[in-house]
């Protein structure tokens, strides 16, 4: 009989001391917090995460009130605080990534700058070396040839007597050494080359023209065989035109029998092959030196 009173009394006591179950809102807040605690917030925003935990604890504690609206309000606050911690964590993570990228970017830019500087230095050194080589090569030429800087380019004058026998267009053995050194000089530059053959005024103009063309061509062939690119080289026969000395003396005629190798100022046009220009067409022939005086006509004699 006494038990029949005790059981309902105990049940009433349990009900009085117990509290309501977690609402869906509170369960959602708990799940969100658990997820956030595993994310970047744990590393980057621990203070915000602690605030969220405190709000969640308060929401759980409010279950004792058995007031659903109170629990949901507290759960909603915990959910917001958790979302703030989560977002702050991602923000800090993004900021760390940004800062790392910017730091790496500065290093990369320094490397690019340094690399560009190194390339410029290398180019400068190469240019200086090439200029030095060209100057040395020119000094070498000046030992056996006349080298002049003129409006159309650098003109190397070789005496015909050294290069050819009288009336011939075959190179003498001694000429080959000199022309090989000329070839070395020409190979140091990318500029186009014009080879002009000249004779003295003895013999017919027609024969002199043909002889000068063959001599220019012989020199051209030798230079290209020595490695001067054929598309940079052009040969021209000038006959007895443009003498540099009087044809009245044997000494003057020897000076007029010559080959001029012109390293032109304009850059070579790629793909234009070695050609032979007859140079015919009067004083306006291509490659003629404007500053030189035309020699007076001389009676035709044997071609030299």
């Amino acid at each position: 009989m006494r038990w029949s009173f005790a059981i309902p009394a105990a049940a009433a006591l349990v009900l009085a001391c117990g509290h309501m179950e977690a609402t869906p809102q509170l369960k959602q807040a708990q799940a969100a917090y658990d997820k956030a605690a595993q994310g970047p917030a744990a590393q980057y925003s621990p203070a915000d995460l602690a605030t969220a935990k405190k709000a969640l604890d308060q929401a759980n504690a409010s279950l004792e009130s058995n007031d659903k609206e109170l629990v949901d309000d507290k759960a909603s606050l915990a959910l917001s605080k958790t979302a703030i911690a989560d977002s702050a964590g991602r923000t800090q993570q993004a900021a760390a990534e940004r800062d790392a990228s910017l730091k790496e970017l500065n290093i990369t830019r320094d490397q690019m700058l340094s690399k560009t500087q190194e390339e410029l230095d290398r180019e400068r050194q190469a240019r200086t070396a090439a200029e030095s080589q060209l100057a040395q090569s020119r000094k070498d030429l000046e030992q056996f040839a006349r080298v002049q800087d003129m409006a159309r380019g650098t003109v190397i004058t070789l005496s015909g007597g050294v290069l050819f026998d009288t009336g011939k267009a075959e190179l003498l053995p001694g000429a080959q050494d000199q022309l090989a050194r000329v070839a070395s000089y020409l190979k140091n530059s990318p500029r186009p080359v014009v080879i002009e053959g000249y004779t003295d005024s003895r013999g017919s103009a027609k024969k002199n023209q043909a002889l000068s063309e063959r001599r220019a061509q012989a020199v051209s062939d030798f230079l290209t065989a020595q490695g001067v690119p054929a598309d940079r080289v052009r040969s021209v026969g000038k006959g007895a035109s443009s003498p540099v000395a009087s044809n009245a003396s044997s000494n003057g005629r020897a000076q007029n029998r010559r080959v001029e190798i012109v390293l032109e100022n304009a850059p070579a046009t790629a793909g234009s092959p070695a050609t032979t220009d007859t140079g015919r067409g009067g004083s306006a022939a291509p490659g003629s030196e404007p500053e030189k005086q035309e020699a007076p006509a001389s009676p035709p004699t044997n071609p030299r």
Partner: protein
Amino acid sequence: MLRWLSVTAFAVALGAACAGAPPVPAQRFTDAESEIKAAQEIGAANNPQGKLHLQQAQDQLALAKKLSKDDPAVAARKLDNAQAEAELAKSITRETSTRAEADEARTRLQNAQKNLSGTGGGR
């Protein structure tokens, strides 16, 4: 005499119990409104998620104002939630812009590294 004192004390205690929660301090409303304003100023309204939380903050604030007289305890909770929603709107807006900055910095770095590795052969 002692009897009268006991009666008075009981009456005061009963009065306090019947008066309910104290009114919400005006400063609490000012704080929530300031937080909402700060969220608006950093452009939360231009961020889809930020805009959503900004609206919730404004709704909670309006509810708190409505309940402040009759149910100040609930009004205080709604103010807490309004302030937290505004703070969340700010945080999300900041996160979006920081993420965009991080992505941009990474793209710039990748381009620079590509340029650096592509300049190996001289100019």
